[in-house]
């Protein structure tokens, strides 16, 4: 099955500017009035290795990449051999005239040969113009306005040398003109300018987590670089003076989480972000934040494990690890985002929850939403307010930091305001003095764990069920699979989708009520052991036997889900 979208794909060696060209194409599409979804695949190297970005375009919202490619820009021969099976009748390949195409290529595939290398040499500014020439070609082929590309080049090269900007403008125009003159018969109005549309923003979850943190009044972030969350720090670091927060690069993730805990203890809204390997190093600090009741937002962007695993590819195999990380029992609040917009809203929420419950809050992302861009209109968060919870900075009489309370929450204070307390990693009494006395231990443990009950009563919304209430198949999933599943729902009948974002505490009753009514449950996730299905069984007693699991590092595609659904029952066929 071919999804009703136009998919542009550009591939080449790492270092040929594939990702930046992909993003530029996405913005060309949004500025022309369309919706996009970007998916990038690349190996963990800086030069060499195959990089590819696909941009799926439509006049309505798009949530996932497609399996087919309509326009393939091949900056090298390898791109053609790796991706020619994705081409369909009428697809176009744009490549250099020197690239010899395979004889076995479908005869209905159109080849637009452009002297990319020759034009590059003529402009004379080095090898990195190939991507821009190709963008110029694509702009012409899709009947888009070259002025959009010129504007994008101007902002991309605003901080760089004027000669690079001029050379890229020339490159785009050369590609555009070459196609206009030599291949007018293949021009289709795919990106013809739509009128009266407000251009959308193109954002990934790294962007939206950073933007969410800034909106939420975050004051301190210490983030050690790691794929796929480095872009969070790249977004935060340059604007810290504009917004008045501190980003500090630590020497390792252990330092990162302990610095953030120190900053939070001192009164600053604090966060860290990492991937699975870095979170392994953070787990002792995670538990420390739990017992000292220090608010902290931890972002964990999963990637392919175990160990270094597949560092630039997707996986959702850290769920169980995150749920059980850190020694001992302490109140763990765990959220998971399924797309960049959800990541934005959950980031805002996470800061308030951390402050209210004085405990670490983990926001789980996965590589595909961290690095894949999606188009959005303005996010609605006008009602959001910073809530710091029970915090006093005045000198109080008879102050006790860990005083037992009905909801498990005690008034927090900060050093320097005159209130005496110890934030103590050792079990402690109400003041914070170390205590291993049995009754006190139970009192403090009960107090801390009580927060989860309060959270469940006051802050745990029911899960979201997409699609019709009555369905032949109910899909259960979480994280980045959301996009592909929503696309599949659009193509099928009588399928609904239970999307889980609140992982711990878990909305067990609501999930149970929905699943008990389901005729057929399909679990979809990107790991080997069906970790979410296991959690659902633990929380509800419901065993899900039908599973679509993906652990090859690639995204689950809408087409895979549609195939799976139609194999379950014909009733879903539209």
């Amino acid at each position, binding site marked *: 099955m071919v999804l009703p979208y136009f998919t542009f794909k550009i591939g080449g060696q790492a270092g040929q500017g594939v990702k930046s060209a992909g993003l530029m194409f996405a913005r060309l599409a949004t500025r022309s009035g369309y919706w996009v979804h970007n998916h990038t695949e690349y190996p963990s190297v800086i030069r060499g290795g195959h990089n590819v970005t696909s941009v799926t375009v439509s006049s309505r919202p798009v949530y996932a990449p497609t399996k087919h490619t309509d326009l393939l820009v091949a900056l090298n021969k390898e791109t053609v051999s790796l991706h020619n099976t994705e081409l369909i009748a009428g697809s176009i390949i744009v490549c250099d005239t020197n690239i010899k195409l395979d004889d076995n290529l479908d005869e209905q595939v159109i080849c637009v040969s452009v002297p990319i290398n020759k034009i590059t040499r003529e402009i004379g500014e080095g090898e990195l113009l190939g991507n821009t020439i190709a963008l110029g070609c694509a702009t012409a082929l899709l009947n888009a306005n070259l002025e959009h590309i010129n504007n994008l080049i101007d902002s991309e090269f605003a901080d760089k040398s004027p000669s690079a900007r001029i050379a890229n403008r020339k490159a785009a125009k050369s590609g555009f003109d070459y196609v206009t003159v030599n291949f007018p018969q293949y021009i289709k109005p795919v990106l013809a300018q739509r009128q009266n549309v407000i251009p959308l923003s193109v954002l990934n979850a790294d962007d939206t987590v950073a933007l969410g943190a800034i909106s939420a009044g975050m004051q*301190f972030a210490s983030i050690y670089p790691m794929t796929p969350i480095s872009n969070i720090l790249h977004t935060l670091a340059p604007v810290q003076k504009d917004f008045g927060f501190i980003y500090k690069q630590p020497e390792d993730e252990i*330092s990162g989480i302990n610095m953030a*805990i120190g900053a939070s203890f001192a*009164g600053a809204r604090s966060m860290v972000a990492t991937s699975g390997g870095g979170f392994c190093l953070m787990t002792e600090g995670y538990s420390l934040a739990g017992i000292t009741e220090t608010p902290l937002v931890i972002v964990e962007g999963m990637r392919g494990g175990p160990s270094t695993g597949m560092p630039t590819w997707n996986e959702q195999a850290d769920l169980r690890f995150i749920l059980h990380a850190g020694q001992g029992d302490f109140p763990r609040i765990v959220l998971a985002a399924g797309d960049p917009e959800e990541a934005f809203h959950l980031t805002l929420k996470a800061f308030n929850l951390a402050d209210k419950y004085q405990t670490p809050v983990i926001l789980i992302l996965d590589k595909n939403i961290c690095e894949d861009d999606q188009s959005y209109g303005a996010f609605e968060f006008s009602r959001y307010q910073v809530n*710091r919870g029970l915090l006093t900075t005045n000198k109080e009489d008879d102050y006790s930091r860990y005083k037992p309370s009905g909801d498990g929450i005690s008034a927090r204070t900060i050093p320097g305001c005159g209130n005496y307390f110890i934030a103590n990693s050792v079990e402690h009494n109400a003041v914070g*003095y*170390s205590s291993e006395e049995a009754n006190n231990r139970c009192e403090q443990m009960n107090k801390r764990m009580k927060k989860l009950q309060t959270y469940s009563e006051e802050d745990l919304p029911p899960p979201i069920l997409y699609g019709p209430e009555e369905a032949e198949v109910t899909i259960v999933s979480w994280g980045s699979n959301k996009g592909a599943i929503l696309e599949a729902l659009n193509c099928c009948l009588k399928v609904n989708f239970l999307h889980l974002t609140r992982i711990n505490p878990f909305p067990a009753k609501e999930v149970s009520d929905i699943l008990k009514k389901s005729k057929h449950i399909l679990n979809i996730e990107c790991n080997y052991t069906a970790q979410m299905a296991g959690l659902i069984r633990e929380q509800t007693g419901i065993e899900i036997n039908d599973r679509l699991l993906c652990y090859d590092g690639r995204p689950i595609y809408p087409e895979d889900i549609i195939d799976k659904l139609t194999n379950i029952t014909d009733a879903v066929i539209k």
Partner: protein
Amino acid sequence: MTELNDLATPYFPSYCPGCGDIAIWAAIKKAAVEKGWDNTNTTLVAGIGCHGHMVNFIKITSFEGLHGRAIPVSTGIKMVNPRLNVLVITGDGDLLAEGGNHFLHVCRRNPDMAILLFDNGVYGLTTGQASPTSPQNYISKSTPLGNPEIPLHPLAVAIAAGITFAARTYSGDIAATAKMIAQAVDHRGLAIVDILQPCITFNKGFSHTYYQDNTYVLDTNYDLTNKTWAFEKSLEWGPKNIPLGIFYREERPVLETVVSTTNEPLVSVSPNKRDISELLKKYV
């Protein structure tokens, strides 16, 4: 004004009678009374080890964190509230073994805080294993055949990594130790005081007598701005050859000023919802 009584907690130190920690406890309180440290201006950050118990015996707001991690916690505090006087209480296992990486990098960063290194050359709380400052061939529970490693010179490491104040005292001299702690806090930048102390239970070699017989005070001609001299002195160790005093001092911009993004300490302004509409424009 801080009185000695203001610093009293309901708990008396749980240290072995004669432990060097008791003398250091006295020295910190003496410095606190003289300098007026209290809950409005000071915070203590400790790691894990016998030293860490001290937060229960001095009534100054404290953070007792993880083994080896007092440095990043204190650095985080200092960055968001530069007005706080931050004292790090740590041990030779805590700072130099488990926390060695943080120790190197905090010396490069130079936050304005003081590290008090309770240095007894042994792991006391875990009942007697070799530490990074135990002598070579030292017999302990973890080194029954003799310590195969040579000891680390903490001040040499600190000076090499860029610390701006390095000093050593002997815990038995409470007055000198108190004075040195006060000087370390007064220094603008990162200070370390390597406080030699006996562990009377698990390290019989580093006794009070040993320190009294083998230490000497750097003489008045010593140039404490000379980094080469400081480095040489920091490597000295042995019979009659353990220097005490300030080894090195320099002025360098402090971390919290370098990374500051606000006029007032970050924590003095309550965080508010921020307007990101300008920032969002670059994503269109």
